[in-house]
């Protein structure tokens, strides 16, 4: 992991195995739903459901600070704990969780490289169906870093060009508007295409076949040299619902160390539904 700008935010499965059960280390599996968690998870990990626990259930929004404090404190996590996140779908939803933990100012949160699939396929790693019952603690969010999040006014500003990198991490067919969403997805939009000026860099560009992140040199070469992301500019990453873009946001901000990177969680399901918003195909 040498040469990542912030190597401390990424841990390997072997490190997690060696540190399981240590005081102050808390594991959280974040999945799109908890079917995978229910089938089996890393021993001592609690499970968060991205759909029902990380989203406000009334308006379309991330959970607010009160709900975050209740969720995290209810999982027995204190602000001083080291939180290790991992999950299904190549850590997309875990990366979204990482983004949320950072918004609310958690000091030490890390991703497990390769997610649950890597752990699953390593013979020396155990899994369990036992659901831990941690004693709730009082958790107080230390910050509200909404600067990590892009909202529509900034996206409009960015699409005018010049000052921002806009990174579209969806599949090439979504970028060109050939499809509006991957097959079978219920969240969609009225129009297909991409935000003017966006560069197409699918999320999977950042990972190796086993789902772990590519080396810092490879990532720099891809994002900065080949795709032309300017590290001196502010950057917005987006996808369809904000989970794949969390993964790329993590790469740009923490592995490559680009200063001001925002995740646009409204993403295409917001932008592609706006009246009169400019679209390129």
């Amino acid at each position, binding site marked *: 992991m040498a040469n990542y700008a912030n190597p401390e935010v990424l841990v390997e499965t072997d490190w997690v195995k060696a540190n399981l059960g240590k005081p102050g280390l808390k594991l959280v599996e974040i999945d*799109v739903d908890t*079917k*995978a968690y229910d*089938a*089996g*998870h890393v021993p001592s990990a609690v499970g968060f459901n991205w759909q029902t626990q990380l989203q406000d259930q009334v308006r379309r929004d991330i959970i607010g600070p009160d709900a975050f404090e209740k969720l995290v404190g209810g999982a027995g996590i204190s602000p001083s704990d080291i939180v290790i996140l991992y999950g*299904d*779908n*190549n850590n*997309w939803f875990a990366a979204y969780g990482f983004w949320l933990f950072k918004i609310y100012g958690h000091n030490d949160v890390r991703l497990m490289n390769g997610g*649950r*699939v890597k752990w*699953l*396929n390593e013979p020396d790693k*155990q*899994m*369990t*169906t036992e659901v831990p019952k941690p004693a709730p603690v009082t958790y107080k969010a230390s910050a509200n870093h909404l600067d990590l999040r892009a909202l529509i006014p900034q996206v409009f500003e960015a699409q005018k060009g010049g000052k921002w990198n806009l990174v579209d991490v*969806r*599949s090439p067919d979504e970028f060109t508007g050939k499809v509006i969403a*991957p097959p*079978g*997805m219920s969240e969609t939009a009225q129009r297909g295409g991409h935000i003017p000026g966006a560069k197409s860099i699918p*999320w*999977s560009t950042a*990972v190796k*076949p*086993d*789902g772990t992140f590519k080396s810092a040199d490879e990532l720099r070469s891809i994002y900065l040299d080949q795709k032309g992301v300017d590290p001196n500019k502010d950057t917005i990453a987006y996808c369809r619902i904000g989970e*794949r873009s969390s993964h790329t946001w993590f790469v740009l901000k923490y592995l490559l160390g680009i200063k001001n990177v925002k995740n646009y969680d409204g993403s295409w399901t917001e932008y592609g539904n706006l009246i009169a918003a400019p679209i390129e195909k």
Partner: protein
Amino acid sequence: MNHQTRVYDNVFELLPNEQNPSPLVRINRMNPVPEFALYAKLEWMNPFGSVKDRAAWTMLQDLEHRGELGNGRGIVEPTSGNTGISLAAMARARGFHMRAVVPNKVPLEKKVLLKIAGAQLDVVSDELCPAPGLGDGSINIAKTHAKASRDKYAMPNQYENEKNVEAHFQTTGPEIWRQTEGKITHLFVSLGTCGTVTGTSRFLRSKNPNVKVIAVQPTEGHDVPGLRNVTQLGVSKLFDSSLVDDIVEVEFRLAYSRAMELCQTEGLLAGPSSGLIYEGAREIILRDKAGCGVMIFPDNIFKYTSNMMKHIPGLASGNQA
């Protein structure tokens, strides 16, 4: 067991082997080159309804012989349907429970059949956004059950289990060799777990290194259950490309229209994967002109009425008074 009178002590005695092969039936009206003898091997005549009887039985027997089953321990398997139906019925008949992890896109008929055969059903959504090299959601959920609940589940794992290949090396290959009296020149198969193509080809090549093996695959974005395009083969550890002479890609919708033709022209009630294989075989025999070809027809049409209604005009209408 008596294959002459066809009286058996239990259903497992009906499973195919060299002495009791699945039938080989010649294609007549749909053969564009009559000098090229083309046969279909009707795997739906196996007792649990598909080619998967072979791998399922060999894998289940292996687990039983190794003492992996019993005392509350059954099996869990990711399946697009046929393996699950065979495994569930076999496992239940042997006294074991079975959990089938099924991709959502599997036709409703197969899901219901799995339940009827005795499987506990886990339906999982497929990948949200496929990444090269990552496994299917259903495979990983099944692996998770096998890892986290070892006391409850053993996983045959048809995608990685060499017994899947061995089943075809021991039965399908010898059957075809005997049934064609060693005259086979072309083998036509589809790709799924690749147990069929690898095991059958290995046997036939051991008898005659010149037998051509043609794998037929649907175009990308297909919805033909049980089949894989080469770009999706990362999940199978059993594919041996050195055994395959040609990979013929067929527009996937032809799987359905050719299946319909086989039903209505040859009287063969073949399913869509058979329709796809037929189309690939047709293209090759037009090219090669002479030979003796065997197509492995994996299953029949009965499980695919909903897919057929989607792709064949007219099937969905006129069904009500």
